[in-house]
């Protein structure tokens, strides 16, 4: 508890004690008329004064603020309304009530502050992944420095149990790294020389010497923290609605209060004291604070909970979209499959050898970063002779053309065979065909493994009520069908050109109705247009690949497709809690207003409908942080 909070409690407790003292004084002394030297009128005044003193003691701050704010033109301010309401109670002779209500209001206000502080702390603690220091290793000495002082190229030592302070590469040492702070995964990953390490993870038993590759402000940890912080500025539709609503709500209720104060007593519908009390009740309820605080807080909690699970959601609006997902489109390679291809078979034509095929392909593909190219390079295994290849051109959707030893060579998918009479291999493997000077040399078959988690992910998604799953791939149909069927995917599209992917996505978007949203899950690098087009773009983050983090709306830090279902679950829970809070806040307020209209409600209910409901809503909003894992 902060100092102001402790001071607050002391003041409130003192005021309460004073209040009860005055009540006793009134009950035992003034009412029975024990002070016989006072006339009845003077007795009355004494009662008023005694309560008024307590009132001033407990409420002077509120009254003062109200006065200050009016001079600034802030009329519809909680302090002013509370002051009017409680002074109004004094006016109708309910002294004890007036003081009690002011006290109750203060208690409620204190709880509200406490709840807000606690939730802020809760969230910041949960997001406490930033490293406090880094051990610089220079000239055989270890110096502990602020991570911000380390530059690229510096060597740092990470001892067992310490947080990895900066992104870098292991130069010496072996260890296991706990990535749970970033990915939510408790299983540690092995790292050794040459492996990258990411800031925010915790080093386990081995000591590591790491060469720093990114400075602190570009490190993964800082990027994630910034993303989470900025996420609350991308507001959900609900949030915008609440802001608009709040702007109209207060003036309307206050005007209603004014009417209530004047009209019923003028027309004789109500006794003046009753109508004034009802007006005061309305005044107190006119503050929409419960909604304005709890709704953004809920979203913030949801984003925090997601990041704890290794899911970065970049905006509250995406939480809304995620909760309404009906269709998910998947990219195949790297998303549902591991993306690390391996050459499994080489089928040369008559007169050519397997080695020749691989050699030619590896040389032509030497500049490409495509996973297929890498698998061929791996299979070749030897150094590529740069002199043999010239004029390399990558043709998207087809393959690569080049000059190899003076001859025209094409290496690519079935499309390069157009016009030629070639029997295509029908196996469910990705096939790379090779042409030299128009002649077909043979095929290289490459296989891509399904991720172990993909099947489970699909089951979870179906269970979560996703109506339609779609798979898009540029790979051949046989492969697409095999993988798609294994994963129970509803619509499978293979042999797609990049523009086909976008076209299919567009048609799916057209078909989706109303609130239903469409998501796309890819690996971020070449899926940018589709990611931008859908309602929610999800990218596999590979422990923080920059391209993915930039392009997508949601990033899965550990490439695990099961996290999609987790993200949906967290989003739905958050939206549910938001709706609960709106219903509670508005419901109670309307109820008390109705009761006030017919004259049953008292100021107690009004204050509860204001601060009490606020505290409830804030506490409820905190539930978003606790992801009930199944």
């Amino acid at each position, binding site marked *: 508890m902060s100092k102001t909070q402790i001071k607050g409690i002391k003041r409130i407790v003192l005021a309460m004690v004073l209040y009860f003292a005055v009540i006793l004084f009134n009950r035992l002394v003034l009412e029975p008329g024990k002070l016989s030297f006072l006339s009845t009128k003077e007795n009355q005044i004494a009662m008023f004064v005694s309560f008024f003193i307590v009132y001033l003691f407990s409420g002077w701050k509120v009254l003062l603020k109200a006065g200050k704010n009016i001079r*600034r033109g802030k009329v519809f301010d909680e302090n002013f309304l509370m002051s009017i309401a409680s002074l109004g109670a004094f006016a109708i002779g309910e002294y004890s009530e007036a003081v009690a209500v002011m006290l109750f209001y203060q208690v409620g206000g204190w709880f509200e*502050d406490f709840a807000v502080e606690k939730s802020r702390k809760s969230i910041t603690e949960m997001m406490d992944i930033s490293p406090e220091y880094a051990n610089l290793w220079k000239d055989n000495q270890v110096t502990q420095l602020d991570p911000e002082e380390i530059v690229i190229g510096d060597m740092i030592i990470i001892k067992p149990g310490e947080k990895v302070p900066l992104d870098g590469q292991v130069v010496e040492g072996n260890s296991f790294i706990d990535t749970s702070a970033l990915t939510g995964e408790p299983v540690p990953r092995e790292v050794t020389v040459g492996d990258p390490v990411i800031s925010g993870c915790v080093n386990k038993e081995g000591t590591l010497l790491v060469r720093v590759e990114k400075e602190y402000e570009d490190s993964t940890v800082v990027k994630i923290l910034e993303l989470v912080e900025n996420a609350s500025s991308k507001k959900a539709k609900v949030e915008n609605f609440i802001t608009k609503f*709040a702007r109209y709500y207060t003036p309307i209720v206050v005007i209603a209060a004014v009417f209530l104060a004047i009209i019923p007593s003028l027309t004789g519908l109500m006794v003046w004291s009753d109508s004034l009390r009802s007006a005061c009740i309305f005044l107190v309820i006119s503050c929409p604070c419960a909604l304005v605080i709890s709704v953004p807080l809920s979203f913030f909690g949801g984003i925090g909970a997601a990041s704890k699970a290794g899911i970065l959601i970049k905006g509250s609006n995406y939480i809304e979209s995620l909760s309404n997902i009906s269709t998910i489109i998947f990219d195949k390679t790297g998303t549902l499959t591991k993306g690390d291809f391996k050459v499994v078979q080489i089928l040369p034509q008559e007169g050519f050898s397997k080695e020749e095929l691989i050699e030619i392909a590896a040389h032509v593909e030497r500049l490409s970063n495509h996973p297929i190219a890498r698998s061929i390079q791996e299979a070749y295994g030897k150094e590529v002779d740069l002199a043999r290849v010239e004029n390399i051109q990558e043709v998207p959707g087809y393959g690569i053309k080049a000059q190899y030893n003076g001859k025209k060579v094409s290496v690519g998918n079935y499309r390069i065979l157009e016009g030629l009479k070639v029997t295509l291999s029908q196996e469910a493997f990705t096939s790379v065909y090779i042409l030299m000077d128009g002649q077909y040399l043979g095929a290289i078959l490459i296989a891509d493994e399904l991720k172990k988690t993909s099947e489970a992910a699909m089951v979870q998604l179906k269970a979560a009520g996703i109506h339609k799953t779609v798979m898009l791939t540029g790979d051949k149909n046989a492969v697409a069908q095999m993988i798609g069927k294994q994963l129970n995917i509803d619509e499978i599209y293979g042999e797609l050109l990049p523009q086909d992917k976008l076209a299919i996505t567009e048609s799916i978007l057209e078909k989706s109705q109303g609130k239903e949203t469409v998501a796309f899950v890819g690996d971020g690098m070449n899926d940018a247009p589709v990611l931008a087009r859908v309602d929610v773009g999800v990218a596999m983050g590979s422990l923080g690949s920059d391209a993915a983090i930039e392009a997508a709306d949601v990033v899965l830090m550990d490439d695990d497709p099961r996290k999609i279902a987790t993200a949906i679950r967290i989003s739905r829970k958050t939206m549910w809690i938001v709706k609960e809070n709106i219903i509670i806040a508005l419901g109670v307020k309307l109820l008390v207003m109705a009761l006030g209209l017919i004259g049953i409600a008292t100021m107690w209910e009004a204050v509860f409908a204001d601060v009490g409901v606020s505290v409830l809503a804030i506490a409820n909003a905190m539930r978003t942080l606790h992801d009930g894992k199944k």
Partner: protein
Amino acid sequence: MYVNDKTNINKKKTGRNIMKKKYKIEHMDCANCAAKIETMIGKIDGVEGATLSFITQKLTIEAAEEHQARIIQEVSTIIKKQEPDWVVHI
């Protein structure tokens, strides 16, 4: 007003010379009031976008680099007038 380096400004260029500057604001007691101030700040000349989060206690201002200094001065004036209890860390 406090001058405090650590809690401070986080600069990020978002192209077109637009910068995002963040400021910490303490002692905000009313979320409704924060919303009103956010709207007022958004209307300041040169401000492309302003977000005032009651929860994170941070004010983010998106504006061209050359306007930022003037903008934060106007922001301080507004806050001093409307919410004198708030503390803006520049």
